[in-house]
């Protein structure tokens, strides 16, 4: 047992030193990179006749601009990122059937998962389209719209939308079809949160358009209203700099919960 503690402490120390060293190295590289990048580009031009950054390689890079590079004259990446076309559902279904007929079950499963991913992304986009353009005088942040799906597994489908001005923000997060959601919903819907009478009350049970919900308040992050929808969906509204609970509830009431629920296939 003693040895374990000694080992753990040793490990923490070693990792700590290692991390510090890494950070220093990275800083050093950044500085060197900037200086060498210019020279590197000139050399690239000399040998290939064109700038490496503009060589038409698109759609594969994952590093954002300014991402760290470890090489001496590697220019920082300015790629266009991954192509975000969702998987072709029909094609994947064709592939799944072909693989299944050939008893190639692993391939069949992969194709079905891809098809499911495609369908989930479409569901997510449809839900996003159905959400209001403005909430409590805040316009939507089109760039922040997000649909995430794993096609299967724990995470399920996640839909995000933000509305904001400089000092006020309203966020909507919709989670659907994830494994843990069922458990969360049972807990919330059963009134599992115990209400206390003494001390500070930072959350309470409430109702939003007839749906049972939990509203929480935090000095730093503001209001958070969680509404379970059906068997496996949850919609969370977060409001920053909303003057009162009433304001927050009014903002959330703009949303068509029945419509979202229907879009998600919940009963």
């Amino acid at each position, binding site marked *: 047992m003693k040895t*374990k503690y000694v*080992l*753990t402490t040793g*490990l923490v120390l070693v990792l700590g030193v290692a991390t510090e060293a890494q950070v220093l190295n990275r800083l050093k590289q950044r500085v060197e990179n900037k200086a060498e990048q210019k020279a590197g580009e000139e050399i690239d031009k000399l040998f290939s006749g064109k700038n490496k950054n503009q060589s038409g390689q698109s759609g594969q890079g994952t590093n954002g601009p300014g991402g760290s590079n470890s090489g001496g004259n590697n220019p920082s990446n300015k790629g266009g990122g991954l192509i975000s076309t969702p998987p072709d*559902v*029909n094609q994947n*279904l064709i592939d*799944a*059937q072909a693989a*299944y007929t050939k*008893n190639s*079950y*692993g391939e*069949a*499963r992969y194709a*079905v*998962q891809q*098809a*499911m991913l495609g*369908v*989930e992304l*479409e*569901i997510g986009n*449809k839900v996003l389209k159905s959400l209001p353009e403005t909430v409590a005088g805040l316009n939507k942040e089109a760039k922040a719209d997000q649909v995430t799906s794993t096609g*299967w*597994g*724990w995470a399920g489908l996640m839909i995000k939308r933000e509305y904001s001005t400089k000092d006020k923000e309203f966020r909507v997060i919709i989670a659907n*079809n994830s*494994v843990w959601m069922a458990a969360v919903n049972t807990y919330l819907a059963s009134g599992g949160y115990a209400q206390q009478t003494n001390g500070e009350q930072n959350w309470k049970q409430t109702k939003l358009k007839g749906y049972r919900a939990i509203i929480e308040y935090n000095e730093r992050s503001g209001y958070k209203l969680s509404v379970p929808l059906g068997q496996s969906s949850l919609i969370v509204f977060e409001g920053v700099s909303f003057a009162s609970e009433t304001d927050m509830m009014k903002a959330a009431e703009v949303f068509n919960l029945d419509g979202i629920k229907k879009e*998600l*296939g919940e009963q």
Partner: protein
Amino acid sequence: MAQEFDKNISAARTSYASGNLQDARFAMEQMLRDIDIQIGKEVLKLLPAKVGALAMNEKEDNVTGTGGYVGLYVSRHYGTDAKRASIEIINNSPLITSLNAILSMPVIGGMMRDENQKIIRVQGYKSILNKNVNTETGKTNYELQIPMNNTLLTLKMDDTTEGEITTAANSIPLAKIVQLAQ
């Protein structure tokens, strides 16, 4: 089973074509379940009829497909009450990723190591061997966990030795199982 799959795939197609995305997704979940069960049946065919001297109990063979969440579960049992063994396979489950992560971190693997646990290689796969001495019977039981990509195979044997369980593990065609299940 193939009929079920065909039925579900045509349901998925029709629903998708008519814009009924929820029903399409549901049909696909069913398809994943069908495929998992089919994979499970194929995996069972690859498992040995005997583990050491213990014969399999075919009636206890089990395949469960959950269509993604827990993934595929296959089990086969061997022997009688006097001495039992079992092979369990979990495939396509998000849980396996975390196990793989633990195994691939030598430091943590090393810290976890105690006298009843060690990491060995079976057919090239890093595996965790657990020893468990039953204080009532005085018998030594072993459990060997072999994570392979998205598949976890667990071999359990009662009243055995490290040599016997390793030999038994080597009689399982791991590479073929992985190929089938991935």
